[in-house]
């Protein structure tokens, strides 16, 4: 099947839907998702979305800019951060006008809460900057934007899995998808394609990410010749519910929750004396794992406690309903009376497809544009989050840069026609599928995936070192060879999830190699990338963005400078 739209958006999370709402007035827009709309992982964001509204206390965008840059360990491009934080209040009011049911202050304004790393007056004390709707902020923003898309009659193609990006002479002309319900291939032609496909947490064993968050779009872009930026920066959220890894929002600490070790000690006082439990996520995750390494995990095991018991039942149920209900359900702990067992969980990738501040994909370190291709949200790297993202800045990123990408596409499509596509793009992806049916199936997809997820935890998570990274890369090479022998026993065309997972794994293995390789070459510690063998930040040598390029010899690492406008790198103490 072949269809044609002015703009095709891949991914129905917040970035994709916000972009769709933006361009629907002047363009024929279609949104493709591998799940149904409203199932996207943006919906699981709990805590909030930042903006310096100053509804609860004094706040300024300059403070937000500073916090984001410091949170990112000075790797963020400060011009991009400035664009984001200055636009934040407008973006929030706009969401409110669309109908997002934000929690309210006594005066009826949008309520705001504390969140990690967000401070008043350049680090003096925590500031209430995160706008929220109890602890289901992501879900209600997703629902509201979906509702807006319905209102504007955006065309949705659900349960479509993208197999390739179609290029000709360096311009993106569309995508080929696999229809999960029928097994048919579908060519979607477009003047502009936006990738808004989220993260890749599922390359790790312990993750807050959902099953759909496999990250194939990073690799499809990479295979098309586009470099990936800063892929070594993978965020582990400090408080994943032990042992599942499900997110327990930072809102729990924003509302006053405290981390404690086996001695009941509030250990964050030692690691971040000023803002304690509300330090940036990389700092808190390292602190938790250090406590565990030194034998102060609960009962000597690999978790610590998140204590909410002093907050009282009313506040807990009113502001943290979602968290309370799943903690009760999954681990049989009632946060009203007992502390919650938590451990760091893979949550977010700061790196991604390099873009300018209008979502246009950059093809190299000189800033050359990739015509017809755009990226926004977690799969993109603008870069606003640098080496470590602050909580609640992600939803802001999605809304601000989703909108800007939508606007840019609307502007750009006037320059493009629907060019005919040379060759048969459907034929060329058929081999990707048939290879699994022709294989003897000596290797099982599931066991290869489990091995990859474990080795990424071992060698590529919070603490890294040269020897481990080297071993990890070698093991990924072995897994890739074994993957060549893998087959899919289900030969059916209707909802063949086994086939989809087999294709996903190929992308995940490539992606794992890119993360480890980028990490191997960065011989310093910065933000979420911590090297036991190089424990200090090294600005003279590494204050630069990694770009990893595909070459016939394999991945090749190059660098580009960081844009520093207002804040020169300084020691990062919380």
């Amino acid at each position, binding site marked *: 099947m072949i269809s044609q739209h002015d703009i095709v958006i891949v991914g129905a999370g917040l970035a994709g839907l916000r972009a769709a709402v933006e361009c629907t007035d002047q363009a024929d827009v279609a949104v493709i998702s591998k*799940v*149904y709309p*409203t*199932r*996207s*992982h943006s*919906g*699981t964001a709990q805590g909030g979305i930042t903006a310096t*509204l100053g509804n609860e206390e004094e706040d300024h965008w300059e403070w937000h800019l500073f916090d984001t840059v410091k949170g990112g360990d000075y790797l963020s491009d400060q011009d991009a951060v400035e664009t984001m934080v200055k636009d934040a209040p407008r973006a*929030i*009011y706009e969401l*409110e*006008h*669309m*109908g997002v*049911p*934000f*929690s*309210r*202050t*006594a*005066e*009826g*304004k*949008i*309520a705001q809460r504390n969140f990690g790393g967000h401070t008043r007056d350049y680090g003096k004390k925590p500031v209430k900057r995160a706008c929220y709707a*109890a602890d*289901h902020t992501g*879900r*209600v923003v997703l*629902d*509201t934007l979906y*509702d*807006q898309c*319905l*209102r504007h009659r955006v065309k949705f193609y659900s349960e479509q899995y993208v197999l390739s990006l179609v290029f000709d002479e360096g311009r993106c002309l569309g995508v080929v998808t696999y229809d999960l*319900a029928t097994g048919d291939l579908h060519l979607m032609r477009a003047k502009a394609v936006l990738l808004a496909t989220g993260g890749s947490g599922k390359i790790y064993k312990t993750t807050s990410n*959902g*099953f*759909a968050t496999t990250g194939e779009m990073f690799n499809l872009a990479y295979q098309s010749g586009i470099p990936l930026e800063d892929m070594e920066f993978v965020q582990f959220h400090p408080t994943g519910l032990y042992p599942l890894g*499900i997110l327990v929002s930072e809102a729990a600490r924003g509302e006053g929750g405290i981390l404690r070790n086996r001695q009941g000690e509030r250990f964050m006082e030692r690691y971040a004396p000023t803002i304690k439990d509300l330090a940036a996520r990389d700092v808190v995750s390292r602190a938790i794992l250090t406590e565990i390494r030194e034998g102060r995990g609960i009962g000597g095991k690999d978790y610590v406690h998140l204590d909410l018991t002093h907050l009282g039942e009313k506040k807990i149920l009113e502001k943290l*309903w*979602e968290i309370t*209900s*799943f903690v009760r*359900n*999954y*681990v049989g702990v009632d946060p009203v009376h007992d502390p919650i067992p938590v451990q760091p969980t893979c949550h977010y990738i700061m790196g991604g497809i390099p873009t300018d501040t209008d979502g246009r994909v950059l093809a190299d370190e000189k800033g050359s544009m990739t015509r017809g291709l755009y990226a926004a949200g977690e799969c993109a790297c603008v870069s606003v989050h640098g080496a470590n993202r602050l909580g609640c800045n992600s939803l802001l990123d999605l809304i601000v840069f989703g909108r800007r990408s939508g606007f840019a596409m609307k502007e750009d499509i006037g320059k493009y026609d629907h060019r005919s596509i040379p060759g048969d793009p459907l034929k060329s992806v058929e081999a990707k599928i048939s290879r699994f049916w022709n294989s003897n199936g000596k290797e099982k*997809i*599931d066991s290869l995936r489990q091995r990859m997820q474990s080795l990424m935890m071992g060698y590529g998570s919070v603490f890294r070192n040269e020897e481990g990274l080297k071993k990890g890369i070698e093991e990924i090479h072995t897994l890739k060879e074994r993957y060549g022998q893998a087959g*899919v*026993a*289900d030969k*059916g*065309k*209707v*909802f*063949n*999830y*086994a086939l989809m997972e087999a294709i996903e794994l190929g992308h995940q293995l490539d992606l794992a190699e890119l993360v480890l390789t980028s990490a191997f070459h960065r011989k310093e510690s910065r933000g979420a990338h911590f090297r036991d063998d190089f424990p200090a930040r090294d600005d003279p040598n590494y204050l630069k963005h990694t770009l990893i390029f595909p070459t016939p010899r394999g991945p090749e690492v190059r660098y580009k400078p960081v844009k520093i406008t207002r804040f020169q790198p300084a020691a990062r103490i919380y």
Partner: protein
Amino acid sequence: MELKLKIFRFDPQKDEKPYYQTFAVDAQPTDRLLDCLNRIRWEQDPTLAFRMSCAHGICGSDGMRINGICGLPCQKLVKEFKDEVLLEPMPVFKVIKDLVVDLDLFFEKYNSVKPYLITTIAPPEQERIQSPEEQAKLDESIRCILCACCTSSCPINQKKETEKYVGPAALVRAFRYLFDSRDEGSGERIALLDHKDGAWGCQTLWKCTEVCPKKIPVTQQIGQVKRRIYEAKHPKK
């Protein structure tokens, strides 16, 4: 412990009619039922089809009938079951394969209630003012994850003669906008809901409320929608 999962199977590519197949899974008492389904697909039968994504009751993908009652297998733990559990697709909707149903009708009905804020007065530069009390009216309804468990459990939706009933999920979303103090579209909304397949299709049978994985008082909210329609048509003198 070993748990047996008796699962409804139907593959339109080869089966003339559905059948049940039982799988045994070695599971921890704290494993989710969804974990067991994944293990079956990964280790025993790759053709087993079911939807899932977030695996903790937010995305709403994995609604199915569990021992006869609609729910989410990602919210159910193995220890809640004795020896065997029966898994079937949600009723009301057409089965595509195994536990996967066609949700197009569900989203069509959802779309039919104008599920978005309707305003005519231009908004202020900043946020519209809404008191915490006004906002709190929406607290429960905004937990809805569109899993369709309520609509598929509703006896009215299940009956052929009344299958056009818009269903509880769409009515919860109608409630969410009708009772939003910022909304100015109540006239349009009430017109859409005031008919036998709209809010009046509900016969207060409470099945929706019983099954809701997010503990939304669905029946009560539909009751408030009905009252709102009645009051709009019978203004107090």
